């Protein structure tokens, strides 16, 4: 039975420079990622995200604490056999062509040799690389193609755990949509996805939960399906025919418990404490006959994590 990923009190320190200065990359990180969950990792540069991913993959040895995947250590060969990994730095065997590269990883993953050719062709097709791209040397690939072939190798053999480090970096909009669809497919078949990305909108769309990492700590874990409980600014736009006066807007805000920040001829900015306040405000405006065309938060839930000061270890 799948046990998911369990991280207990993980700490990691690097020594840098001639003086051996100690830099703490992770400080007592603990969390659990359930089987079948899509889990995002976000945070500023140098926050410890890559170190965290390195520990999850068994590439780095933590100073203390431990990681288990399905009850095994992350460098256990049984874990490796059910893991797919897309690194941020797309350093691949660039002398191979795309098809050979996938066949090489298919063999390394100890997948059945009789399925190799068909699996490789299916993998190329899955990431939108045509036959010509499959025959081309990887050193001639564009950044977007490298990303696609990298994802294709990560998905070989339908792994149960998929670790993606900046999967949509350098990819065109069509590629971004494709990646989102592929991650959706992974989730549908029950794979556990760990996604490290700076692209917050992507993370917000595909992940069930998102950990905000900063200064080596997990500062917060957001459950994306839960209602927002933090204050945010909502921009509401209406059609010209139904434009309310600032006084009317102020009254709607007061009624719903929101605060009117700014009123313009075609839109206004309100501060709402939570989802319920936002809903009351919009309902009040619509009931009053104002044709609301758009209501968008100025800052997404994940962006807000970057602007709010947090205590170390607050969300871990």
């Amino acid at each position, binding site marked *: 039975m799948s046990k998911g990923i369990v991280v207990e009190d993980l700490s990691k320190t*690097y020594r840098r420079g001639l003086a051996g200065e100690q830099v703490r*990359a992770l400080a007592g990180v603990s969390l659990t990622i359930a089987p079948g969950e899509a889990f995002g990792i976000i945070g500023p540069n*140098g926050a*410890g995200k*890559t*170190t965290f*991913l*390195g520990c999850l*993959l*068994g*590439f*780095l*040895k933590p100073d203390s604490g431990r990681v288990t995947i399905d009850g095994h250590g992350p*460098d256990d*060969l*049984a874990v*490796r*056999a059910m*893991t*797919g*990994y897309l*690194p*941020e*730095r797309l*350093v*691949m*065997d660039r*002398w*191979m062509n795309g098809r050979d590269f996938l066949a*090489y*990883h298919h*063999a*390394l*993953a*100890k997948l059945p040799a009789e399925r190799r050719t068909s699996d490789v062709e299916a993998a190329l097709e899955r990431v939108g690389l045509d036959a010509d791209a499959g025959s081309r040397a990887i050193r001639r690939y564009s950044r977007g193609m490298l990303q696609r072939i990298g994802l294709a*190798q990560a998905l070989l053999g339908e792994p149960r755990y998929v670790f993606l480090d900046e999967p949509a970096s350098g990819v065109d909009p069509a590629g971004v949509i494709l990646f989102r669809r592929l991650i959706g497919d992974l989730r549908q078949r029950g794979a556990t996805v760990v996604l490290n990305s700076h692209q917050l909108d992507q993370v917000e769309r595909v992940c069930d939960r998102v950990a905000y990492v900063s200064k080596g700590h997990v500062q917060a874990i957001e459950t994306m399906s839960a209602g927002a409980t933090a204050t945010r600014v909502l921009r509401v736009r209406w059609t010209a025919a139904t434009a309310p006066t600032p006084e009317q807007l102020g009254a709607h805000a007061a009624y719903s418990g929101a605060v009117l920040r700014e009123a313009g001829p075609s839109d206004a900015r309100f501060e709402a404490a939570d989802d319920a306040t936002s809903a009351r405000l919009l309902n009040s405006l619509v009931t009053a006959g104002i044709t609301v065309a758009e209501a968008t938060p100025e800052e997404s839930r994940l962006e807000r994590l970057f602007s709010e000061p947090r205590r170390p270890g607050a969300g871990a």
Partner: protein
Amino acid sequence: MNGTLIVAFLRHRMTTPIRLAFLIVAGFFPLLFIAAAPAMGFAPIADSFQFALIFGAGMIGQDVSSGVLQLLFARPVRRDVYVISRWLGASIGAAAAAVFQVGLATLILSARGAAPGAEAVAITLADHVASAFGATAPLLLLSALVAGLGDIGLLFLLYTSAGILQAAGGGLGHAFISRIGVELQGFLNPTLHFVLVLNGHPSWHHLITYLSTVTISIALAIVLVNRKELSYASSS
């Protein structure tokens, strides 16, 4: 040992233009001497050291510096198996080149009227194959120590040091200093001489030195690779 790793390694070596250029030069240049002076027999092709260098240089270090180890070790591949497969890949490549060279040398000698006996050919082949598997082992260790092609630099440094020690020992009249230089050179290029076996005087010391050098080099390389952390976070 992992056949996929060995085949991919050899394919890479055979598709790298600079290595191919060196392989052609190192493979054919000594044959000119054999053609010019057939009386020398196989002497111009003393061992397989040059082939070990061509196939083995950077066998682990280049994987470390390029970053491909991350993807490789995300697969169910044991690190000791990876190290042994690298050594075998380089050794097989070097041995194949050496066998091809000895074959060509035999043809040239025969064409020049100095055909070697079957026994001499067999001994030369055995010596060259042993040299290929021997010389790649210390190179494997050096490649596990330093990134990129730093193993070549380290090898050159150690060889030069060995030469200096030999010369200094001779000049100063201290035999033990010379001996250190000789042993260091022997460690860097372990060889076997099958002619001694054939003559009924096998050198057990020689054989054990060869086997221990190869074994210790591979074991240390495995320890070094096992201790290696693989993340660009650690170096950023």
